[in-house]
């Protein structure tokens, strides 16, 4: 609702960005409303990067290698601590992507009324699409380019309506027609 309201404020110069922010929030919080067991939101990339920066700053301050200005010589304790922290950070970053995928997949599954899952190939398509939409609105909320906003907005609306108010038998009539078209010599 807040997205629709802000988008309707034609005099608001930031209406697109604020609308995108509201849509991203809605996508982020959707699992709460459809009863998906969800762990508390893990720390984001920014928070993790700040943690790493603290160690980096300490390394720069205390490492003998830093003092040389060329990072030459045998690895000392501050440098070792920084390298270890970097390894942990990039490891986390890799799994964070997996976790995020799983969260989105759980959402896609929960929105399908059938008790049986979509096959992985189709589910992946749906999850990727959802992520792309999320990333687009997240990026726009940070004042990146607002190009194609309307088509992204429309696609998201269409997808959410499909999920919440399916037209299964109409889809199946369409599928039947397409099969007939394909199989008729």
């Amino acid at each position: 609702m807040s997205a629709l309201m802000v988008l309707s404020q034609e005099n608001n110069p930031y209406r697109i960005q604020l609308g995108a922010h509201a849509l991203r929030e809605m996508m982020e919080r959707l699992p709460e409303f459809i009863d998906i067991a969800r762990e508390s939101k893990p720390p984001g990339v920014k928070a993790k990067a700040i943690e790493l920066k603290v160690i980096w700053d300490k390394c720069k301050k205390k490492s003998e290698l830093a003092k040389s200005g060329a990072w030459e010589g045998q690895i000392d304790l501050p440098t070792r601590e920084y390298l270890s922290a970097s390894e942990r950070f990039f490891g986390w970053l890799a799994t964070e992507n997996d976790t995020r995928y799983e969260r989105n997949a759980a959402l896609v599954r929960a929105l399908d009324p059938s008790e049986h899952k979509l096959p992985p190939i189709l589910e992946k398509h749906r999850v990727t699409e959802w992520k792309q939409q999320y990333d687009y609105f997240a990026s726009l909320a940070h004042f990146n380019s607002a190009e194609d906003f309307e088509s992204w907005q429309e696609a998201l609306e269409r997808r959410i309506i499909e999920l919440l108010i399916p037209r299964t038998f109409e889809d199946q009539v369409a599928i039947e027609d397409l099969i007939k078209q394909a199989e008729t010599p």
Partner: protein
Amino acid sequence: MIPDSIVNQTLEYVRKGRANYEFFFNRLESPDWIAPLVERRFFSQPPEPIVEGGYVRFPAWPESSYLARVADRAPEEVASVLLAMPESTNPRVNEDIAAAAQHLPVESILKLVNRLCTAARSPYSLLLAEKVMLVAVKLASEGQVRPSLRLLNAILSLRVVETETTSSSYQNQVASSLESYEFERLLNIYTPVLTQHLGMNAFRFFAGLLNSYYSLATRGFDQEQVFTSIDRPAIEKHSQNWEHKTLDYLVNAVRDSASQLIASDPSQLTEVVQVLEHSSWSISKRIAIYLIASAETVDQNLLQSFMLNRSYFQDSEYRHEYALLSSRHFAKLPVDNQEEVLRWIDDQDENQISEMLAFMGAQPSTAAIKEAADYRRLERLATIRSALSGDWKVRFDKLLAEHGEPDHPDFTSYSSGVFVGPTSPVSEDDLKALSPREVVEYLKTWQPASDTVFGPTPEGLSRSLSEVVSGNAKSFSASAAMFVNLGPTYVRGFLSGVEAGLKKGETIDWDPVLDLCQWVIQRTDNPHTESRLIDSDPDWGWTRKQVASLIGKGLSSVSTAPPIGLRFKVWEIIQFLTNDSDPTPEYEAQYGGNNMDPATMSINTTRGEAMHALIHYLLWVKQNHDDISVPFTLEFVPEAAAVLEARLDVAVDSSLAVRSVYGQYAPWLAMVDEKWFTEHKTSIFPRATEEAAYWSAAWNTYIAFCQPYNRMLVVLCEEYELAIERLEGSSSNRTLRDVPESLGVHILIFFGRSLLEIGDGGLLDQFFSLAPPEVRAKALGSLGHDVWQNATELPKKFTDRFEKLWSYRIDECESRQGATCVELAKFGWWFAAGVFDEPWDLDTVDRILTNTESIEPPHLVFERLAVIAKRLPKRSFEVMKRLSESKISEWDLRSESVKSILREALLNDDADLKSAATDFVHLLGAKGFSEFRSLLM
């Protein structure tokens, strides 16, 4: 070639949900879709089994089903997809692969053999076995012997079943990995076709499987102890075989495969027999003998090698088949060979016979040994009687005249039936034909054999007697005096027959019957009188209980009761039996408690039955009280009142069974003499903690057996209160398990009759505040069930009060947010009964669904909604939708009632309703319930 645009457009729909995905693959008919779908990476990720909470599910895979469906039209393409597909442990996927494989080119099938073998060995083969079998048949028909046999090995593999080994076990239990019926079915259907294609290889395979059977069966046991003639008495179909064991199915397969080969080419008999004779197990050799015996023409050398094999002649393992062989082919042997066999017949080993007789407990005298040897000769000669001539013929005839026709000479032991229970020496029809005097005479003279366990017994005869007496109770009762001096088994049978006659509505001559009863109660128990006889009463105890039962039954109905003039004779017997020692405290301690509730024990013991008879006696005397000016009280039956009062003293009678009788008849005791009942109420239902068991025995029996009579609410109000108090935190460790629920039903019915009210702190409030949630739920559900069954007969005033009650319960639950409200779910029965106003009913279901996870039973709620939908389509649809979101099973939702409700909504003029119903139908479709599609067409 399907254009990419169509494929992509179709997949846009398919991606929307599982239902569309399944619909798409189930509708595809053309193999042209394979290539574009492969290109889009379909057919590459078969679903694995899903393990959930100790169960395993095998999801169907629409993609593999499609391949199986089009494999016959595009074998090469399907083959290439299947070969590229990762292996799966999901049997449903493998079923599709096997189904498709039957249509593939042989070289492709060969590449799938390993995968199919692994799949067929899975413990969850479901329908896979037959599909793999068809692949094996296909390979066999294409001359691919080894791959075909590999598949057969995988499908029909045997295993040792893990069972507890006992000292009497002589071999392991061996079974197929398939269900027994499936194993039998596959062997029956496919043995002929496999033999046709694989010839001798099929036969060798089955023979090998039979060898494996015995190798596994004897693993860890002494192989010398294997007697295949016990496991399978005859190779051919025969009444002596069990014919429903793995072994039987295997023997049949080997026999039938071999017979088929020999029928198609008789010269194969020699090779078949060689294979079988080469086995270590006698079962195979027996099949060989059977096949030779069955052959029309047999090579003379082959015949001689078997007929002149002394081991086959002598060993009891081969007796049946050797007898078969002799009877068919003895005459074809050369004379000198025949004489050899006859010499063996003549040459009976007397030492062995002597040992056998001694083993069986008989005296191995010279005469007995000769007789047994002659009988053995007779048995052997009987199998070749048509070929005998000259001296041997004379000898056979002589033996036959001496011993008669031998019983089943081709079997060492022959089973003629099973023991089913006590048997009578005389049929009921024969007994019916006798007069009472002749019957008594027969009972006096018949003696059971002392040396048999399975023959007729006194108990068997007693049961026949009982049947005969029940059919002619009038005549037999008049002759009761004749049964004096018979033993307890027969007297009990007689009295039981008289009682059965009363139950059938026959009238009897009571006086002589009561005389016999008096004679019975004067008998003193002498445990040694008849106990030496098998299957007879050890003493007079059971007969005394029968006397109490007969008198109680007689007094319980005006039509069967004795004339009142016999009152004192009747009383003498009852009084005597109320002093019987059965049940003793020890007996109650052993068999009561959680084993048997007191009420049940009361009708299974003499004193308990006598107390039942006493109550019927009271009522009988009351019925015959003809002075209407003086109300009947227990003062008119002081003899019974004295016993009733005495037996309430625990020092006199500590039996819970006896106490339960007071509870069972509490309303009748109160009706006969309410003053007496009130005065003795605290003795019948003692409140002291140490006597709690007596309170429970009387109260539980009252609640379980008695209707909620209005007067009893007044008389027993305090007991109801105490019972409710005692409900708190209880409900287990009771043998009459429905007691708490029945108490709840009493309270609810009293409320329905306006005897109890809501909110006055009375019994109703106490019940709902103290009873555990499940007891409240059971009571509301139980009464709801009765209301649903008898809805049309209930007064509106009664059901109207429950509208108020349900509102009270829902308010109560709503006020205690988060409290357990399981009882609300039981509203479903009341809703289904249709006893409330429809709008109120619908609102109430709505409210209840806010407070509980479900409503019971959903299918009946949907049924009623379907009825209401004709008048209130919108509300019915809304409530149905709400219910569909609660915890109900898929099958409750996929009902005709739900369809009716939706149909009403879809046909309605209200555009919003129509639109909401359409959305809901699509939602059901998205769940995969494709049958709802027709509603939108």
